[in-house]
């Protein structure tokens, strides 16, 4: 490969051989990383798909309930009922490392531990449909948070897989063949030099002998 100028020296040869060894090792490691990432990604993507289908269905159901609730109440009372929520959701985020991808793990905390604190309105002026609607939404919440965790992980992992795949391909199809080709070129050049030295020496020896003894 004569695209770049290479010095056909022994030093260059040793350097390239070292480079080839590193590249081959790196290629093997990256390939393993890609395979493992792909395996865990596919598991996670399947889970993501299931969870999303489940959450979307449940939210649509809850939305229906909310439409029912808003049909039986006047808009002012409805918006007033949601003005002062008692409950609050906090998240602690920690990260776990899957093949050098930091994927988030959400730890859910609520301000109060009472489950009934989601009904933050007076029961006298609101319809029972609203209670149903809020409770159906509360049932989805854990799945929603889990969906966020899984979906984010999937996105981060897919980006990492793409990057790793590019690296593996670059090493496999460009870097390693190019280095091998260069090594071959230098070896051939060095051999050729050696042969030419050999013939020159033989020729000189012939000439010297001829001069000295007249062979």
């Amino acid at each position, binding site marked *: 490969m004569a695209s770049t100028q290479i010095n056909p020296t022994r030093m260059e040869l040793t350097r390239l051989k070292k480079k080839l060894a590193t590249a081959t090792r790196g290629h093997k490691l990256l390939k393993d990383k890609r395979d493992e990432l792909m395996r865990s990604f596919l598991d996670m993507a399947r889970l993501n*798909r299931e969870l999303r289908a489940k959450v979307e269905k449940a939210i*649509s159901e*809850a939305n229906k309930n909310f439409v029912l609730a808003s049909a039986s109440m006047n808009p002012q009372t409805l918006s007033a009922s949601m003005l002062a929520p008692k409950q609050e959701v906090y998240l602690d985020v920690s990260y776990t490392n899957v093949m050098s991808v*930091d994927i988030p793990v*959400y730890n859910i905390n609520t301000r109060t531990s009472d489950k009934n604190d989601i009904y933050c309105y007076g029961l006298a002026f609101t319809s029972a449909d609203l209670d149903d609607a809020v409770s159906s939404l509360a049932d989805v919440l854990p799945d929603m948070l889990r969906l966020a965790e899984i979906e984010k992980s999937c996105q981060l992992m897919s980006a990492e897989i793409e990057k790793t795949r590019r690296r593996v391909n670059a090493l496999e199809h460009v870097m390693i063949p190019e280095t091998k080709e260069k090594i071959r070129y230098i070896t051939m050049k060095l051999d050729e030099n050696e042969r030419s030295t050999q013939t020159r020496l033989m020729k000189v020896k012939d000439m010297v002998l001829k001069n000295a003894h007249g062979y």
Partner: protein
Amino acid sequence: MYKVAVLGDRDSIYGFAALGLDVFYADNQQKGREIFKQLTSGDTYTIVYITEQLAADLTEEIEKFSFKPTPAIILIPGVKGNTGQGMAYVKKSVEKAVGSDIL
């Protein structure tokens, strides 16, 4: 301690307020874009749920965040129904990783 935000039109998301999530009402795309920028610029919120209707106009912004560890932008169906946009994002990430949608 991070919090969770929900962004969408009033009818779709007012119920989330009762659960203790922070709701932000945006009745048009312009307002949605402004609030989305605010929510994602600070580090108060680690999950932002956004209705598919609003997200349709914010695809570029949302994709920008898909490679960052926080925040997670998650699409949810609004009261007007499911557009399939959320599932499309899942498909997209599979396609990105595998090369084609094999699931």
